């Protein structure tokens, strides 16, 4: 067993690429992701990583290069964040359509405007429908492991679509915690060299990729195939998860159940703030309150059946969205509601929006959410979306608005 070491989320992501023995790494900097490509650049310059490291002029070019290299049969790694992911978003759809199996890491950072640096998930969820698979990590360990599992999943002939691995800016990217790095030899056994069977452009093997189709039916065929590939990924992921657990002793399912067995009340959370939810669950348990947590890990494909199985029969469920779709509410809430719609024993749902721009979700706010859960369990009709915002925060923001010269009503 390899010893643990302290690694930031960004370092863990770079190690994921290194252990996966990526062939090609196109790069463009953006806070809070830049450390990933800095570390890979350093390793590449010192010959510690054999990959070809190339800096591009934008995320759009970077992702185009990534897709093109993957179409030539290379194992490709790259990383971005926030505005960068959005700038490259057009290319995400394009290369997912090429069915090339690269891994892209996104370090979540809230979107402008106003501009900020800390995390929420409007960036990664803007890429929700691109055709990429999405794995959302809670810990630095899970980042390394998800990149390795991500390549296995992406390169499986039953799947063959690119993967986005998400980690939160600051709360993971700059946070060190103990990580066990698997040995390169063990990783090589788990993740053998990639031998492309459908995408292998070479001078002596010419082909056309991503060709134009007109008339609708051919287009529909190729789009439906992306849907079927994602369907397959649900099953293939579990096979890979079992093998990963056997080899490395860490088990990652599509969703994670925390203290769910006898839970009356459930919090649904994702990414690094799920840790905070788990800490609250542990506290509530010491107080005799039966609360559990369901963590969304694989978000695309959406594991609706696993989610429904975990949530049916509960007294009440709070779905935390660390994102906001103005005009609708939380982005994940309707997906979870849809997963439960056909279940006769579906629980009452509370939509909660919190943690935008890295705003803390304090223990007091979790308590307030719990009080709402008790209310809806006893028959109160729908509340929400509940926008987490405390009196103290409102007062602080009012001070800032006054400094900015805004005329505030009393």
């Amino acid at each position, binding site marked *: 067993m390899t010893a643990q070491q*302290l690694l930031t989320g960004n370092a863990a992501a770079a190690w994921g690429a290194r252990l996966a023995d990526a062939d090609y790494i196109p790069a463009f900097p953006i806070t809070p992701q830049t450390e990933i490509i800095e570390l890979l650049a350093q390793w590449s310059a010192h010959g510690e990583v054999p990959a070809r490291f190339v800096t591009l002029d934008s995320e759009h070019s970077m992702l185009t290069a990534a897709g093109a290299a993957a179409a030539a049969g290379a194992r490709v790694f790259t990383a971005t964040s926030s505005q960068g992911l959005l700038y490259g978003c057009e290319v995400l759809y394009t290369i997912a359509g090429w069915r090339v199996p690269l891994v892209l890491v996104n370090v979540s950072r809230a979107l402008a*405007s*106003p501009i900020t*640096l800390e995390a929420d998930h409007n960036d990664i969820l803007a890429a929700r429908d691109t055709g990429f698979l999405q794995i959302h990590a809670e810990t630095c360990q899970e980042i390394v492991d998800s990149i390795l599992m991500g390549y296995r999943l992406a390169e499986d002939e039953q799947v063959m679509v690119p993967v986005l691995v998400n980690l939160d800016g*600051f*709360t993971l990217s*700059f*946070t*060190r*915690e*103990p990580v066990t790095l698997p040995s390169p030899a063990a990783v090589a056994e788990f993740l053998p060299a990639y031998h492309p069977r459908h995408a292998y452009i070479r001078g002596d093997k010419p082909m056309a990729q991503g060709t134009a189709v007109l008339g609708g039916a051919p287009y529909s065929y190729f789009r439906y195939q992306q849907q079927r590939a994602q369907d397959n990924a649900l099953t293939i992921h579990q096979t890979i998860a079992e093998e990963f657990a056997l080899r490395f002793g860490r088990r990652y399912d599509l969703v994670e159940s925390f203290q769910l067995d006898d839970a009356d009340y459930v919090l649904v959370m994702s990414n*690094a*703030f799920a*840790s*905070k939810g*788990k*800490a*609250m669950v*542990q*506290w509530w348990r*010491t107080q005799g309150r039966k609360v559990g947590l369901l963590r969304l890990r694989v978000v695309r494909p959406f594991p609706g059946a696993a989610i429904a199985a975990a949530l049916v029969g509960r007294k009440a469920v709070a779905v935390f969205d660390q994102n906001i779709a103005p005009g609708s509410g939380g982005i994940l809430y309707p997906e979870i509601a849809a997963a439960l719609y056909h279940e006769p024993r579906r629980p009452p749902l509370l939509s909660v929006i919190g943690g935008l721009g*890295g705003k*803390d979700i*304090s*223990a*007091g*706010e*979790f*308590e*307030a959410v719990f009080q709402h859960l008790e209310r809806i369990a006893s028959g109160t009709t729908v509340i929400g979306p*509940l*926008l*987490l*915002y*405390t*009196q*103290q925060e*409102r007062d602080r923001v009012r001070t800032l*608005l006054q*400094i*900015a*010269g*805004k*005329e*505030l009503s009393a």
Partner: protein
Amino acid sequence: MLRIRFHGRGGQGMKTASRILGSAGFHAGWIVQDSPVYGAERRGAPMSAFTRLAREPIRERGVIASPDLVVIADETLLADLAAQPLLGCDTRSTVLMNTRKQSAELSPLGAVSREAIFAADFTALALETTQSLASLSVALGVAAARLLGLSLSEALAGVTDELSPHLSAERQAKNVALAQVAYARAEGWPIIQERQTTDSPTLVTLVEVAFDPPTVAAPSIYAISNSPERKTGNWRQFRPVLHAELCTRCWICFVRCPEAAIALDAHDYPVVDYDQCKGCLLCVHECPTHAFTAEQEVR
């Protein structure tokens, strides 16, 4: 769990201090989490960093609201609304302060008891031993390690982990020497114990978010030209001091000052606005006749 919050200004090394403490704790067998938080990278601007040491996996993330130990690298942060280093401190919190004052001279620090305030001039220790203010990270990281009951060898292992990838052997040796001095300085201070009970969550009042007109709700700033009200003079660690007898009135400092904190007097000599000067020392480096010197701030 032990929760340690570091407060400093960009450039004072408090991110590194939090990592030195984290690595030292890791060598001592603790489960560790450390993380910094800062905005756009600016030397002199307030920043903070967090280290957690625990025996069980750590599920807390981000800011530490109720610290066991607060390490303050710069006394001027006490009055800074953007820093508020004493926020969340209670009667069980300990403060480690870098200051030229004695702990008895420090005015009451929030709810922190007088017996739990430990003060020393770590800046002077750093300058004497390594001739570098950046070494404040080592001095405070190691002193914090001692306050938490870590051994000298564990503290030194933390220093080596953090500095060896970045520093020459000579600089490393100086920093190890500083670590030994700083550790010795903290010996005799009582060791902070883990809290035995978990606090109940402080209840908060959630408020409705009502519609505001765009004159309020758009992220625009109407109060223009108010940046001089944000006095940045206390960002300085060194102040530029003009020696007029060497000045040729070439105005290079006046032109180059990135903060426009240098004006010209009636005789065209530069005058530094010390309320605004952040101490970047560009004037000291640019002056062709070396008419500016850098003097350490006395606070």
